[in-house]
């Protein structure tokens, strides 16, 4: 079956995405040198989330997909976050 309206990412745009990801990696390694106390994990996770979003949108071509799939992917992450929160309603108050 022929792919109608193909979306093709250019080599250079993919290379730029990689550069951003490598920079973020370096940044997260560098920033662990500082001590934010309880926030260390939060900072590391925020950077990780940014990286994951970058991969999803660019490498996995989510930017070319329909709205429904975008919502689904977001929804899956939201569901998982809710599961974590609900579990911690137990652990946090125990």
């Amino acid at each position: 079956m022929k792919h109608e309206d193909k979306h093709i990412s250019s080599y250079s745009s993919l290379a730029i995405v990689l550069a951003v990801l490598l920079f973020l990696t370096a940044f997260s390694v560098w920033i662990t040198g500082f001590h934010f106390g309880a926030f260390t994990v939060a900072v590391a996770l925020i950077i990780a989330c940014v990286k994951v979003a970058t991969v999803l949108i660019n490498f996995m071509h989510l930017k070319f997909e329909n709205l429904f799939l975008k919502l689904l992917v977001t929804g899956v992450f939201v569901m998982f976050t809710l599961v974590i929160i609900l579990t911690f309603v137990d652990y946090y108050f125990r």
Partner: protein
Amino acid sequence: MSISGSETQVSYLDYQGKHKGIWSWLLSTDHKRIGLLYLYAIIVFFFVAAFLGLLMRIELIAPGRTIMEPQTYNGLFTIHGIIMIFVIVIPGLAAVFGNFFLPILIGARDVAFPKLNLFSWYLYMIGAILGVLSQFIGGGAPDTGWTFYVPYSVESSTNVIYALTAAFILGFSSILTGLNFIVTIHRMRAPGMGWMRMPLFPWALYATAWIQVLATPIVGITLLMVIAERVLNIGFFDPALGGDPVLFQHLFWIYSHPAVYIMILPAMGIVTEIFPTFSQKPVFGYGAIVLSSLAIAFVGYFVWGHHMFTSGMSYNARWFFSFLTFIVAVPSAIKVFNWISTMYGGSIDLKPPLLYAISFIFLFMIGGFTGLVLGSLATNVHTHDTAFVVAHFHYIIFGGMGFAFFAAIHYWAPKMFGRMYNFRVANIAWVLNFTGFNLLYFPLFIVGLQGMPRRSYDYLPQFQSGHVLSTVGAFILIAGLLLMVYNLVRGARKGEVAPANPWKGVTLEWKIPSPPPHENFDDIPVITSKPYLFGNNSDNK
């Protein structure tokens, strides 16, 4: 609505493909044949597990040892639970009737991934056989209960690993079926069938499939962790190593509570198909039923904690989970109102499928209300781990899913096999099933409230009268089940030839011949109206 009968194609039962004989079934990628493969497997495993259940009931007819040793009893309730839950009720309706009728109801020729569909069946069989084998090989039947609670499931010297692996494989099969259905519903609906023109059984399957896809992996990884715990001593659930057994319960129920909705949502979908047909009236509140299915799937994902009220969970978690549990009762009740309103003022035709569908409502209501008793914190403490729980979930799972399964098979058997069963025998079997069922499980509510523990081989003499009644009920039920299956099998083989539309139904499956042709439709139908429009109504909208 366009009618697409078929004079040119042979029925799927007579179709000769690449393979001959038994291989034309075992290697078939036809969704209808795969549906039947599931059906036959499920009937066999159901009778195996029902027989184990009957043995347990015989053991419980009197206090003390009756026919077996305590350890045998532990094995029986474990394997009974594993087979019934993982092999029968979780895949049950979706794999049998979903496979057979989902593509037909949405006007497609097959599911999106036919080969994957067959692969799921093989995974299912491997898992199911492994589950049954775990009863007989090596270190003895697993004795942990189907819930595999740690720390006992880590310590027990029985075949727990086999049972865990079986459940893992069955879960994987369930995921692939769910995935297949979601994609099928998204991509393969007939032209003109917008989302709000889709019949309600596919809607229920859609909601179910999302739970299968998003909840099952969690139990998969949990079972792997228990295996790692047993083999590698990894310590996640072992307090001696700093682990937390309650964490296992969280992980287990994050899947296993939504699993209850994997069982009940397709059941609700099926009776939603039956009520309009036998009332000859459009379904009441189409949109409300759709939304309540989705709401049940979504909210049902977040109520798992109500299985853990006595586990030492924090107080805040307990009231919050209890609150969410009460919320999930709302969409369930909406559906009940819709079914009853659909019947109201209709021309009701009390055929066997409708009998089962009405008894579904009755039994599901009892199961649902007692579920609220268990979902409230105070009463839960009293009834936790008693026979009350056993009665409650049998009312939901057997009374709900089981009776919906019987309703479905009586509704669709003429379509599936092209032959009719005997109504009189079917009605007698229904009477036996319905009385037997209530006699079997209702006394358990009472002895449970009085303090009879579940999973117990022995009991105090004061509970005996309840147990005797219950065992009598078990025999009546088994007799009813055998009669029902006999009648259906006889009908499928020798019954009179069924017309294409014996019940005057209006959904797509009734517009093609019985049994359906190999490719379902000669021409894909074009949908121009809402579903469930009967008689003159169909021209108005």
